[in-house]
């Protein structure tokens, strides 16, 4: 688009651009402001959090009403400039990430009471938030690299905020792994630029589709997906995640597990579907599926054996990310049509549910930890019973993690199993069933501590600022996503006729 041709529709373009740009720029500005004015950080941070969430909702509404938004920044030729884009998938994830982000912000107000910690937390957290929105809305491969690095650096810095030895060690490892991962990704990008001479995802997509499938595409795909798989902690590259997520402060753990890992996964999905669909065969998808199955079983098993609540939650993230990868072979084996649409929506539904549920879970776990002074599961008895609302949040989030009805992941698993049976890949049903049983075992291992002979709590909610956000997120993952998943299909622009057979 040249500047001239853009001129007549400039006003409309700007209106469409505003929510996308604001969703990224508001937290970025907020980070700068909270850095410059550390005393006002909690106040400014909260205001910015509300504004950012508003921009995200606006983005989603715009996509809902107008369909996908594609925006070339700077008014230059699309191949030269950087594009932002928001389609249904991006909008859904942005909405989830920002609602969770808002809840984390409110929770953090109560969590970081020492001004010192709060001053460190807010600017980094807002940077992380900007990076997340930037990732979900990016339409340019190199811009994604910059966003990935921003995300990685901010996440590692946030994770080490407690300053404890374990936290620094774990997050240093996370930082280094993240750097290797993003450089690997960047190498793939360099190869693509060499071959196709553009970085825009849309243009590359048509260029790749136009050419014969070549080893070059496969190599670029492998490098990029390998890098992102490291970042999304796909088994067996997950080793860095549990210590890093378990040692971070609770609101940060929530953001890392619910959002950061999800962003890397989202990029894999995007590359897979948008760029490399034409060159993929079933075997590549099958490999991802197998790794996902490994993650489901190994992650759940480790979660079951974990002695600490936050470590349990971190291993559960490994397992839950695994579920998402199970969809790849099914998508590959399903021809376009309602069945495939259902799979895609189910995949997203599981990702969204996990986002809400895991954030709620970690926030509740953080409350238990601050209340008990530790998070050793075996000694939690009294605490769990003393904090009914927190325990309730863990229970709700936990049933969403297991995939019990009426949570969103139940619907997701239903459609996953349906897809597996329809495509004849019944072994994923076995994996899903075993994973569900294991996750039920580790969740109820925690919940059974809430029933003891300790004195009865007087009230349901004891600390509203911290407990209500956790409870709300858990409730969304169970009730809203499970009972009203239909709008997701509409948002994705999928054929809403549905039907399995």
């Amino acid at each position, binding site marked *: 688009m040249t500047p001239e041709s853009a001129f007549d529709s400039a006003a409309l373009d700007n209106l469409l651009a505003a929510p996308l740009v604001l969703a990224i720029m508001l937290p970025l500005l907020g980070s700068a402001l909270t850095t410059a004015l550390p005393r006002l950080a909690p106040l400014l941070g909260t205001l910015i959090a509300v504004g950012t969430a508003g921009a995200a909702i606006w983005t989603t509404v715009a996509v809902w009403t107008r369909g996908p938004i594609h925006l070339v920044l700077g008014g230059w030729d699309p191949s*030269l400039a950087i594009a932002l884009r928001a389609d249904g998938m991006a909008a859904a994830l942005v909405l989830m990430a920002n609602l969770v982000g808002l809840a984390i912000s409110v929770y953090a107000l109560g969590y970081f009471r020492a001004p010192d910690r709060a001053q460190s937390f807010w600017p980094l957290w807002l940077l992380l938030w900007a990076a997340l929105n930037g990732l979900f809305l990016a339409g340019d491969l190199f811009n994604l690299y910059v966003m990935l690095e921003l995300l990685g650096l901010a996440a590692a810095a946030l994770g080490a905020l407690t300053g404890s030895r374990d936290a620094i060690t774990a997050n240093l490892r996370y930082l280094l792994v993240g750097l290797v991962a993003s450089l690997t990704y960047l*190498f793939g990008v360099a190869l693509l630029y*060499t071959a196709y001479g553009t970085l825009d995802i849309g243009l590359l997509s048509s260029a790749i589709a136009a050419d014969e499938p070549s080893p070059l595409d496969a190599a670029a795909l492998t490098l990029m997906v390998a890098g992102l798989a490291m970042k999304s902690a796909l088994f067996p590259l997950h080793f860095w995640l549990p210590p890093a997520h378990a040692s971070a402060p609770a609101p940060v753990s929530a953001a890392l597990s619910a959002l950061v890992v999800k962003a890397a996964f989202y990029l894999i999905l995007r590359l897979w579907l948008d760029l490399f669909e034409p060159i993929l065969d079933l075997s590549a998808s099958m490999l991802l599926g197998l790794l996902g199955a490994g993650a489901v079983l190994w992650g759940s098993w480790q979660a079951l054996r974990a002695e600490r609540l936050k470590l349990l939650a971190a291993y559960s993230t490994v397992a839950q990310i695994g579920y998402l990868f199970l969809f790849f072979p099914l998508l590959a084996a399903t021809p376009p049509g309602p069945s495939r649409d259902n799979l895609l929506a189910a995949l997203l539904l599981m990702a969204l549910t996990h986002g809400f549920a895991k954030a709620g879970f970690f926030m509740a776990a953080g409350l238990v930890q601050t209340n008990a002074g530790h998070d050793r599961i075996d000694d939690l008895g009294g605490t769990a019973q003393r904090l009914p609302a927190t325990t309730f949040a863990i229970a709700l989030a936990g049933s969403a993690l297991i995939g019990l009805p009426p949570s969103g992941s139940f619907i997701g698993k239903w459609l996953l199993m349906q897809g597996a049976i329809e495509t004849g890949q019944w072994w994923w049903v076995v994996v899903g069933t075993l994973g569900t049983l294991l996750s039920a075992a580790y969740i109820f291992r925690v919940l059974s501590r809430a029933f003891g002979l300790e004195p009865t709590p007087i009230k349901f909610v004891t600390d509203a600022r911290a407990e209500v956000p956790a409870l709300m997120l858990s409730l969304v993952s169970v009730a809203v996503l499970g009972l009203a998943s239909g709008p997701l299909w509409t948002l994705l622009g999928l054929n809403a006729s549905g039907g399995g057979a």
Partner: protein
Amino acid sequence: MGAQFLFGGVGVVLFVLGLWSFLVHAPLLRKVIALNIMGSGVFHVLIAVAYRGDTAPPDPVPHALVLTGIVVAVSATALALTFGGRLMDMDKDGTDDA
């Protein structure tokens, strides 16, 4: 194109060399150096792609990407080394700052 391959090929070698060193060497400083060499490899490939012989002006886009990449790399280096320094202090004091 021969020159592009020659130069870029060295970038590939640097990338692999850095990756190998990152994987096999435990000390933080060596890992950081390895990462930087890995990054230099990728940048080198991009610079080689931009190079269009000594007469034609080079492609500025990869150059800008590399500039961005260099700043990102030094940022990451600074953060990683600070983390490492903090750990070293803790070792020295034998305490945990939690």
